[in-house]
């Protein structure tokens, strides 16, 4: 039997190797999180915190808003101004908050069901307004919190508790939807390509206007189990690694090679007036009259 001192030693050694200190950003006593073993959400949170650290924005000036679902539990774990709201409505709360306090850097953590189904209307209108906020869609193609129902991003043919014989509904492409609705920064990453994801989230946060990052991650507990993925690793490899192609790689590939694959990286960027600034201009003009 090893002594406690012996147990601690290798851990302490390992700690020295960790280049990034998460603790200033994580609320004391709020971990462990509720996410299942193998879930990608923890990786997304890590990338998000590392990206936020790089922006050097003060914690007091960061507001994190979420709706309902697994991804929406993120704000509870982090030491910012945090608001956990109603299913689908995070963007509406975020809009009110951002307009009331434009200095806040508003980040919305949401899921594929929260953002694209029940919150679909708020999603397109948030993109249209182009308020300066970052929307992270934790996209695991299923409703995890309620145990595995079909979502707007469940691929056709895949199994869920509400699509027992295979989902027949076409899917939403988060990025195409965001771009069409008017978002001025649209990107995709995966939990598997975590370094890439951190960079993409950083860029999204530095962008002035509505930025949307579609983050492909895995729900091994439900999606994986129903769809015969043996391990979370297998899911990550098949869905996130083999199922996506970076924008750079895509240039070298034939259209048929891109068939069925999602593009990773910054997919769209444009410069359009930001809503709070436009509103401020309006106020100044009206008051000058």
């Amino acid at each position, binding site marked *: 039997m090893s002594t406690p001192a012996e147990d601690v030693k290798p851990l302490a050694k390992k700690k020295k190797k960790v280049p990034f200190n998460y603790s200033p950003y994580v609320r004391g006593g709020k971990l462990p999180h509720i996410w299942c073993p193998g879930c990608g959400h923890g990786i997304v949170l890590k990338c998000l915190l590392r990206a936020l650290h790089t922006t050097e924005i003060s914690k007091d000036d960061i507001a994190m808003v979420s709706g309902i679902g697994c991804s929406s539990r993120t704000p509870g774990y982090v030491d910012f101004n945090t608001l*956990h709201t109603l299913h689908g409505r995070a963007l509406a709360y975020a*809009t009110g908050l951002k307009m*009331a306090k434009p200095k806040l850097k508003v980040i919305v953590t949401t899921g594929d069901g929260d953002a694209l189904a029940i919150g679909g209307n708020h999603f397109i209108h948030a993109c249209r307004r182009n308020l300066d906020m970052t929307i992270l869609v934790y996209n695991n193609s299923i409703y995890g919190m309620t145990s595995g129902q079909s979502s707007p991003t469940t691929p056709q043919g895949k199994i869920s508790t509400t699509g027992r014989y295979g989902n027949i509904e076409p899917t939403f492409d988060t990025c195409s939807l965001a771009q069409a609705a008017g978002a001025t920064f649209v990107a995709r990453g995966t939990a598997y390509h975590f370094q890439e994801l951190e960079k993409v989230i950083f860029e999204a946060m530095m962008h002035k206007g509505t930025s949307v990052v579609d983050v492909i991650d895995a729900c091994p507990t439900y999606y994986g189990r129903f769809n015969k993925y043996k391990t979370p690793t297998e899911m990550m490899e098949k869905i996130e690694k083999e199922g996506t192609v970076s924008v750079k790689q895509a240039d070298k590939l034939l259209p048929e090679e891109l068939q069925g694959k999602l593009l990773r990286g910054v997919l769209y960027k444009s410069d359009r007036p930001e809503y709070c600034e436009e509103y401020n201009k309006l106020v100044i003009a009206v008051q000058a009259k």
Partner: protein
Amino acid sequence: MANNKKRFMQGNEACTEGALYAGCRFYAGYPITPSTEVMEICAARLPKMGGVFIQMEDEIASICAIAGAALGGLKSMTATSGPGFSLMQEGLGFACMAEVPCVVVNVMRSGPSTGFPTGPSQSDVMQAKWGTHGDHPAIVLTPASVEEIFHETVRAFNLSELYRTPVIILYDEIIGHMREAITIPGPGEVEIVERRVPSCAPSEYKPYDVQGGEIAPLASYGEGYRFHVTGLYHAADGFPTNNTKLIEEACHRLLRKIDDNKERIWKNEEYYLEDAEIGIFAYGVSARSAKFAVRELRKKGIKAGLLRPLTIWPFPDRAVEEMAGRVKAIVVPEMNMGQIVYEVERVAHGKCEVKGIFRVDTEPIRPAQIMDCITGNGSKPPAPNSKMAEMMVERDMLDG
């Protein structure tokens, strides 16, 4: 705005004026008849005052946006009518649970569903109390004139800040679109309640720590107090809890903070009630007809009196109980098929007869209808509307 000057104004305009007077600097809304003027005037006025106006994509977004803005530190409001009010119910529940002060105006129209959009009604009075799921507190104000809309809107903001809760202003299309003389008070003439903010260090702050009282101070986001707000049951620190004791205590406190203060929230007008033998309990536009009826009945030697609540929720139990102990009968005219009458009946508890006068043809209840009910001519169909008689429902006296 000319201060202390008599103006001729529409009810919906008075609502906006009251909101701005109270310090409202954020409006989010969605157009809906018959409340749209509130929004339109906010759209014109708020930018001039440096406030925020935003037209949202629906009423759900509107109530969520005002709660978000309130947490950002602004006094905020939205206005709607029946269908929009139905959509707002979940957001209202969130504001109750998270204790976010905000004001929601419902200019009542005929329902259910799209109903008759330009037709007045008083049929949301129960929804205003019970619309959102779960046990929750409600403060609902029922002004009956243009001037009163102004003052009740100011009071709504004050109560919402004082008790950290959403407050609903409920008036019907008639009052909303009616034009009357109104004197807008000068700055400082009417008390304005400001939000109680924490005085402790940010690291000490707990957004639901009531410290022996019922209401905790509320910080704004972005001012160093990095706190958590959720619609889940939460502990004093704002973080979710599944501790059954804490859940029970949180629910009790939510209700208690209004119930224990109802004496301060209640507001009634009594009209010839002192020696009345017949009491009328009426709110909103129906109270105007009731007042007229009281005068006419008095001229005929019938001792009628009116109890008019300006706070309909929490229900004015004590005033109704007192009235029930003194009068032979209470008549409750309302523009629905019977809602608040049951509350009156509950409180009267058999001490006197309770009669409802209901009307849902989108015409106001006329004084004659109330007078006929009291003088016993209620069975005769009052001309010209023969349907009216059918809608006058006489309720049997309760046993005991």
